[in-house]
């Protein structure tokens, strides 16, 4: 399914914005909106003005300063997987509004709007394919779909991705970009944490690798379930990763948060993740890791 160019501008979800520190909000909101749609993009980190097409070709990494801008699920998988032999898993699974959830707006309206904006039916896209000819299944969160929140559909697609791995002895790779569990599905979404994580026990029992790649942001219920349980946990530079949002922590402890708190570099220093990897290197890195773990010859040999 091709993505329309216009939706790449990425409408930030307001409740999720509240979870993010002011610096990110500026990057998401003001800086992006100034740019005329389509043709030019301004790097929120170094202010370089770039051709949008150049930025897209570079997997939304600024060619000048290497700032990792958020990338949609489909664009990410497109950049990650070899062009041949891809097919999607779990697209037939779509959301329902079990709780008849309504705040200022109905859940169903939010779903419709998210679908219109992203051309996705929920916040996780799963594909089977290969990376440098190493077959695998890869899942990617769509942050622009309700803040990449995990509800029943995300959980089920994740599990179906894992099943495909079990059926065909493949490793599983997941790219997270999410605010956490989806409030609009109540405890049903909370339990997706248990469901997705339980699925990993089967991969583990079969000695099939799970590589978790934490992109900006990886928070809440996704962070506190499968995301940090990778056999190898990678993160993109400067990605915000944590359980509680920085604002909640600041309000709770009434202290200023340390510089770089909850950033990928901070987590690496604290021993929470294995490695920080530039998005443009992920193909090579993951093909290498997976073949090492599975005792296969190096990729491309």
């Amino acid at each position, binding site marked *: 399914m091709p993505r329309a160019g216009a939706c790449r501008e990425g409408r930030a979800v307001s409740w999720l914005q509240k979870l993010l520190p002011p610096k990110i909000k500026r990057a998401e909101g003001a800086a992006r909106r100034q740019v005329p749609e389509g043709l030019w993009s301004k790097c929120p980190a170094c202010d370089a003005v770039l051709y949008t097409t150049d930025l897209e070709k570079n997997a939304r990494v600024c060619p000048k300063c290497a700032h990792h801008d958020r990338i949609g699920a489909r664009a990410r998988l497109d950049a990650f997987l070899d062009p041949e032999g891809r097919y999607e898993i779990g697209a037939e699974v779509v959301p329902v509004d079990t709780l008849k959830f309504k705040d*200022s707006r109905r859940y169903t309206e939010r779903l419709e709007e998210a679908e219109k904006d992203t051309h996705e039916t929920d916040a996780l896209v799963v594909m089977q394919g290969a990376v440098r000819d190493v077959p695998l299944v890869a899942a990617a969160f769509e942050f622009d779909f309700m803040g990449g929140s995990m509800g029943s559909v995300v959980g089920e697609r994740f599990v179906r991705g894992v099943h495909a791995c079990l059926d065909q002895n493949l490793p599983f790779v997941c790219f997270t970009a999410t605010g956490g*569990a989806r409030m609009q599905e109540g405890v049903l*979404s*909370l339990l997706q944490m248990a469901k997705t994580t*339980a699925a990993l026990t089967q991969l583990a029992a079969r000695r099939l690798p799970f590589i978790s790649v934490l992109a900006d942001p990886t928070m809440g219920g996704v962070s506190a379930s499968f995301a940090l*349980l990778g056999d190898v946990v990678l993160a993109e530079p400067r990605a915000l990763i944590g359980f509680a949002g920085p604002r909640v922590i600041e309000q709770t402890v009434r*202290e200023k948060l340390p510089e770089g708190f*909850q950033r990928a570099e901070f987590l690496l220093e604290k021993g929470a993740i294995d490695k920080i990897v530039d998005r443009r290197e992920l193909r090579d890195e993951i093909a290498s890791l997976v073949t090492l773990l599975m005792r296969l010859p190096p990729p491309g040999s």
Partner: protein
Amino acid sequence: MAAPALKSTFLDFEQPIAELEARIDELRYVQDDSAVDISEEISRLQKKSQALTKEIYGKLTPWQVAQVARHPQRPYTLDYVNALFTDFQELHGDRAYADDASIVGGLARFNGQPVMVIGHQKGRDTKEKIHRNWGMPRPEGYRKALRLMRLAEKFGLPVLTFVDTPGAYPGIGAEERGQSEAIGRNLFVMAELKVPIVCTIIGEGGSGGALAIAVGDLVLMLQYGTYSVISPEGCASILWKNAEMAPEAAETLGITAARLKQLGLVDKVVSEPLGGAHRDHAAAAQNLKKALQDALRSLADKGPAALVEERFERLMGYGRFKEVALK
């Protein structure tokens, strides 16, 4: 176990009951040095108070239930441990960093049978609340729980957990020491633990911080407990941008035992004494004891393989979605 010695604390919506009870206390006081027999009047008021309690508790809103779940006199994990178990041997520490007092655990006997008990623990007075961190665990709390679960597995003991937390603690140190990983790891291990796990939500089931000890073969929930992906206040301040919309959030989030039972997300609702568990700790414990006995009995004959497989299927069954034909 005696009812709390403290004077009863009444919630806002219980004010009519509070007024009646105050009147009864007054009459009792007068009765001692009164020539007239007013015991009849007292008994009449007591009946009225009971009827009123029944009426009010018969139609609690989800937000009111949330207040009962957080009631300062509600029985906490250690109250149930004292009432339901013998030979409790509390075990401490995660062997890596600290002992987190907001999660307690240890070996005990339930009807003579050795088991492992793990639960969130809140504090009663200010000093204890601080010590227990209001029942909000840090990673070391979850890692202690994990260590005790593995210990139970090694010696073939069933695990009984008691859930009562506003949530995992959102603090700087907690993040630095891997709050997310600690919770996630517990979910993983509880999915594959080779002994029976029975979880009971006794008060507040606050999000991931609750779930981290609430994955099991059977999930019980006290009648006025709550279980939620986010606190009603948190949800209201995010979605309505106004924490005062918490009652509406509580309604739509579906946090009560009755609603969750209806959705198939908890297995059994354990009834509480009239006016809530805080009114009668002993009766609340008795009801829970019966429910736990039944739960353990229903799992007793299952071997480790069947246990883990059924638990896995149960976990895979969580979620509501539809499947459509793709174009």
